[in-house]
């Protein structure tokens, strides 16, 4: 275990059984021929997987005693990833295929919480496959009180949404579906696919959890004007011109995460802090937060802060108001 060795990227592939996850997996394995790829599967796929070490795992969700009420991790992944990283034949990439019923939060949080995993691996992106023909039924499915709709969560957590099987539906239906997906998750890139055929550059080496690449986040989310008020999981984008007070912003974020961390699934932001030449960037999953100063603001560019939250029952007006209160002057 060379401490200087680059961290191995891990792609998390979620989506309902039948959405085409295994097809995409097999395509990655075929097209990335020559790379050593390990696959961790939580359910037996529809079709077999060739040319890779495949490890079957049973989902084990552990609560962490770190004072964070929503912090759960995946014990099975900690164990198996630890085993894989001990091997001399280190892998170039690891793919984790979760079940259609899996909650993505513990998977993502595993990469924040376990030191050994943080040191050796990096979560590259959460890729969610949706079946163009059936996803709306899944999203609309009404669950008993207190039970999460897993497909809504998997869409909300995604960095990439692959709308698969578009050959089975019409253009109009796809557009309606995409609008619906964007209403839940304005941050993810949406890609269309037939038979799981999607440009792998859109799926691999995304760097979605890389702070340095928060800056590459497509700011399109702010242009979305259409908000659907009939759903509880939504995205909220905030943009304010000028600078914010660093101390006030820290207080605001701490309070927000303490009070609303359970409901905030993902967040990203680029902030112009008064008296700081560099852009402050952050990203987080629930209450787990990663942030710091990044590259300097280009002199020609206006200093503008942009934040995006994806979560449940987010109060857009209140978020905007409380963040704006951190502004200087």
């Amino acid at each position: 275990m060379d401490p200087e060795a680059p961290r191995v990227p891990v792609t998390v592939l979620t989506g309902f059984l039948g959405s085409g996850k295994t097809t995409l997996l097999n395509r990655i394995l075929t097209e990335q021929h020559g790379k050593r790829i390990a696959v961790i599967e939580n359910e037996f796929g529809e079709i077999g997987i060739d040319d890779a070490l495949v490890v079957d795992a049973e989902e084990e969700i552990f609560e962490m005693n770190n004072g964070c009420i929503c912090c759960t991790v995946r014990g099975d992944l900690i164990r198996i990833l630890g085993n894989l990283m001990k091997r001399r034949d280190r892998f170039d990439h690891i793919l984790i295929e979760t079940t259609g019923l899996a909650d993505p939060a513990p998977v993502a949080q595993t990469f924040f919480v376990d030191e050994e995993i943080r040191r050796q691996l990096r979560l590259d992106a959460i890729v969610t496959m949706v079946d163009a023909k059936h996803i709306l039924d899944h999203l609309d499915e009404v669950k008993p009180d207190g039970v999460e709709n897993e497909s809504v969560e998997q869409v909300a957590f995604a960095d990439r949404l692959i709308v698969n099987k578009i050959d089975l539906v019409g253009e109009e239906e796809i557009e309606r579906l995409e609008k619906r997906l964007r209403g839940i998750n304005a941050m993810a890139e949406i890609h269309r696919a037939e038979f799981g055929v999607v440009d792998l550059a859109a799926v691999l080496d995304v760097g979605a959890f890389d702070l340095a690449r928060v800056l590459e986040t497509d700011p399109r989310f702010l242009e979305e004007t259409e908000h659907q008020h009939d759903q509880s999981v939504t995205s909220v984008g905030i943009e304010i011109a000028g600078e914010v007070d660093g101390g006030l912003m820290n207080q605001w974020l701490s309070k927000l995460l303490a009070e609303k961390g359970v409901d905030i699934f993902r967040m990203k932001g680029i902030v112009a802090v008064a008296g700081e030449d560099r852009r402050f960037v952050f990203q987080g999953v629930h209450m787990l937060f990663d942030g710091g100063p990044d590259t300097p603001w280009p002199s020609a560019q206006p200093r503008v802060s942009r934040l995006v939250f994806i979560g449940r029952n987010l109060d857009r007006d209140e978020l905007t108001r409380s963040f704006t209160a951190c502004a200087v002057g």
Partner: protein
Amino acid sequence: MTRNVRLADRLELRWSRSLDDYVTTMTVSPDGSMVLVGALSGRGEVLDLVDGRAVRSLEPHPMGVLAAGWAHDGCRFATAGQDARVRIFRPDRSDRTVTVDLAGWGAALAWSPVDRLVAVGAGRTVVVIDGDGEEVASWGELPSTVTALAWSPDGVSLGAACYGGVQWFCPAEPGRPVKAMPWKGSLLTLAVAPNGRWVAAGCQDESVHIWRLWTGDDLQMAGYATKVEHIAWDPSSRYLAVGGVDDVTVWDFAGRGPQGSSPLFLDGHGGGVTALAYRPDGSRLASGDAGGLLSLWGPPSSSPTGSVEMGEPLSGVSWSPDGATLVVGSAHGTVTAVSVDGPER
């Protein structure tokens, strides 16, 4: 490449041998003549402790050997692996090996200290098998995958570490667990004090949890910089050594125990302590780290009595019963025997 840094104890490289990949397990036989080693390459070997010659060369688990050990009488040894099997060997006969299928990776293995019984943890199950491969007892549906197993010193009960605490089983009373020591966290390793008074578990939440074995009263030592995967009791049961990132902490269990006390810090390691073992006479603690440093420490003192750079990230250590030899495993697959000539011997 080895280099002696300090020479209070004379550490001398005797032999080394490659197993091709991460050495997961190394145990010297009870008579001190051989060492059983296993690696993620799938190789398992019994090596002569004097010269490192392979007495038995095996490929017991193609996907990787995860755990292995000797029966207390030395008349059997067992290996468990990623192929979901446990294999029981007789050192004197190669035609009498038995193989038993498991419910998952054979990740934990512990021989009874008094009987010829081996306990294996695989997935969420624990099975106890006798020296002929017959199942004596088994338990399923544990709260999570079993990460470690430890017998009480009298061999009556068997503790299994998993998420949610330690479950205790009696092979003589198959059925439900006889006792539970709950703790809301994920346990990674388990060690029972030789005097049977304490049980210690290293935890994912960067702490060590301790129970009094007979009352179940518990205490916690928190604040480690990483999850705790390496702990060791000294033979007198007075000291518990805990591996951290850059140091080893030693807790004193004399009197009323360590609650409220500060541990002794043994500094000098780097990259994570990956190996810990007390010499059978208690005169030395051996510790190794991912940076390749092997150190020896005297009875509670914070300066090492000897150390040597092994040149490869270490993965474990095992003492010979006479305390004259340390077998050291590495993450790159090397098994090395180091002779220890300390003044106390």
